């Protein structure tokens, strides 16, 4: 039946190899797919906007929260840094039971004796090597007068090294000198706050102020400190007023005496305190925390009551750094959760988009799109969504800390890493949460997809 002679004319036509088009990365292709993605995002404006919002909020929250917590920790650490990282601070504290007994007693008030003594300081100096300097201070609360103007303030009798030990600078004039110290001279350095109250108009330098019945020459003015360095438990003063003035230690001792008397709610109260505070400067920062512990032990042995407080700024700084890290991890985790929620939003929308565009997927497959073309298309769309969201989020995330700083005066620090990190995470989320919907799109049966209404 089969005739061999008929065979050659009716043969199958020979085809060249079909062009293998999808080898390697093709920029034009990528550009086209991106354009299609942008078009499809654009054609669902509101839906895309709401989807993107999740990522925007997530990224902005990550950056803003990190900036605020970074700023807060910087502020906290700055406070301790101002106290001097190689300082150990000692303060006299009125012990609780002494206060009780003085209240219950009858008759004339008796002087309460408590606090740090010169002997304590000498012992510390002699038993611990590596102590550079000790700046001891007496703090007495007095009314300071300039003619009719007066202010009730802490008069700090201290040594010439006080400003340098506290990173505390002069605004004008000078601090008192060694020779004035030796001479028990009547010289005074005002804090910025006190100078403003007593000399609202004229320059206080070269003028005099009156404390009790003595006149003191104003030789310098400190710059504004903003807050009290020694915190709330100021020895010798009930509140932590930043208004303080400085006179030579020797002058304080000879003018005001060892025992000070002051008015309290219960009547008169006298107390004898040799030293109200002492700053012990250590050579280098390495041993500061250990030296602090040793000093504490020495003082425990020498004092019956706990009438002193010891503060090691470096230890506090370390604590602040630790808690700052903890805060940042918590803040980052909370913000990260919102990014995750944003990512789930993207996945949700991409899945809806895949279902909605089943027909389109079928058409594209029929017209020659490979699985990976479909995956690419939806993945690029997801990445565009999250990328745009990420960019808006970065802008907002940088703007929000600025607004917080401007309106609430909080310190905020946007580290360059935070926006980069947040944006990368958002793009990554686009990929991660885009993969599943894209694969689902690509795995559709072309026949089924074309039949989809």
């Amino acid at each position, binding site marked *: 039946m089969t005739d061999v002679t008929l065979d050659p004319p009716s043969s*199958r036509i020979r*085809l060249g190899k079909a062009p293998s*088009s999808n080898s390697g990365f093709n920029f034009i292709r990528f550009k086209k797919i991106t354009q299609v993605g942008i078009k499809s995002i654009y054609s669902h404006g509101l839906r895309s906007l709401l989807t993107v919002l999740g990522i925007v909020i997530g990224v902005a929250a990550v950056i803003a929260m990190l900036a605020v917590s970074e700023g807060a920790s910087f502020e906290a650490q700055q406070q301790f840094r101002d106290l001097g990282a190689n300082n150990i601070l000692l303060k006299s504290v009125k012990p609780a039971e002494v206060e009780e007994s003085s209240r219950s007693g009858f008759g004339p008030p008796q002087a309460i004796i408590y606090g740090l003594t010169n002997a304590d300081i000498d012992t510390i100096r002699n038993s611990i090597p590596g102590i550079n300097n000790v700046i001891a201070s007496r703090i007495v609360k007095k009314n300071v007068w300039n003619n009719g103007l007066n202010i009730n303030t802490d008069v700090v009798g201290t040594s010439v090294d006080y400003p340098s030990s506290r990173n505390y600078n002069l605004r004008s004039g000078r601090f008192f000198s060694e020779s004035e110290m030796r001479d028990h001279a009547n010289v005074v350095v005002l804090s910025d706050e006190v100078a403003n109250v007593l000399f609202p108009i004229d320059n206080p330098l070269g003028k005099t102020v009156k404390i009790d019945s003595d006149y003191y020459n104003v030789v310098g003015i400190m710059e504004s400190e903003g807050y009290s360095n020694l915190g709330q438990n100021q020895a010798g003063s009930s509140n932590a007023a930043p208004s303080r003035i400085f006179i030579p230690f020797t002058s304080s001792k000879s003018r005001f005496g060892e025992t000070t008397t002051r008015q309290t709610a219960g009547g008169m109260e006298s107390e004898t305190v040799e030293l109200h505070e002492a700053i012990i400067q250590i050579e280098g920062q390495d041993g500061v925390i250990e030296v602090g512990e040793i000093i504490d032990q020495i003082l425990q042995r020498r004092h019956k009551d706990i009438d002193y407080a010891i503060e090691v700024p470096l230890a506090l700084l370390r604590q602040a750094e630790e808690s700052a890290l903890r805060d940042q991890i918590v803040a980052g985790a909370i913000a990260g959760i919102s990014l995750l929620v944003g990512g789930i939003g993207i996945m949700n929308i991409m899945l809806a988009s895949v279902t909605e565009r089943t027909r389109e997927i079928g058409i594209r497959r029929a017209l020659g799109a490979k699985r990976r073309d479909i995956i690419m298309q939806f993945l690029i769309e997801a990445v565009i969504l999250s990328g745009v969201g990420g960019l808006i989020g970065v802008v907002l995330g940088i703007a929000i800390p600025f607004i917080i700083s401007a309106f609430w005066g909080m310190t905020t620090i946007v580290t360059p890493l935070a926006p980069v990190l947040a944006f990368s995470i958002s793009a990554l989320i686009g990929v991660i949460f885009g993969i599943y919907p894209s694969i689902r799109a690509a795995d559709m049966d072309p*026949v089924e997809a074309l039949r989809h209404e």
Partner: protein
Amino acid sequence: MLESNSETATSSTAVAAAVSGQSIVASLVDIRKTYYMGALSVEVLHGISLDFYRGDYISIMGPSGCGKSTLMNILGCLDQPTEGKYYLGDEDTSQMEDDELSTIRGARLGFIFQSYNLIQQLNVLENIEMPLFYQGYSEADSHEIAMGLAARVGLDDRVDHKPFELSGGQQQRVAIARALAVDPLIILADEPTGNLDSKSGAEILNLFDELHDQGKTLIMVTHSDELAERSQRWVRLRDGLVESDDRRNA
């Protein structure tokens, strides 16, 4: 063995064409298709062998459920036969991987659907360009080809319109232009006038006649005798088998 089998099929089914010495663009060799639904299996095609020649204008007809759609999906490489071989040119597609099938569809076949199946977000030109895009044509080339085809189907003044701005007849003309973009071996049309009024339908059929005159190979699935009247060869299916295969004697 199968080769000789196919030759036998060729000479017995379309003797006239074979004698005229035309070359075969596609051949189906004992195609069977079984669908599995759980434990149940249904064989829809029971062994179909057909050869299609260059320049053929074929109508595939038959009642609902005869296997037309299944056969069309296999011809379009959208579905694989369970048994048998399907040659497109000299390439056997029945064992091809998904990626190869995509390439074959894109490079060798042109699809025209009943419901046009244009992509709504894209304009006329972009719709026509789409198969070229997946074949990796350069932007300049695909633009030129698509503009030429838009002119050929009389829509060169509407290239930047979106599908919803066009009438059904115009949309189907876009689909035809899209099917022609890669200059395919075979154009497959599934009820191409099913959604059109008679005037638009006639326009589409006139276009098909033109394509036939230019030597294109057209395979059309239809219910309508009126539509089938225009073609040169009629394949009737019944219950998954070829019932008749006739050729116009011209």
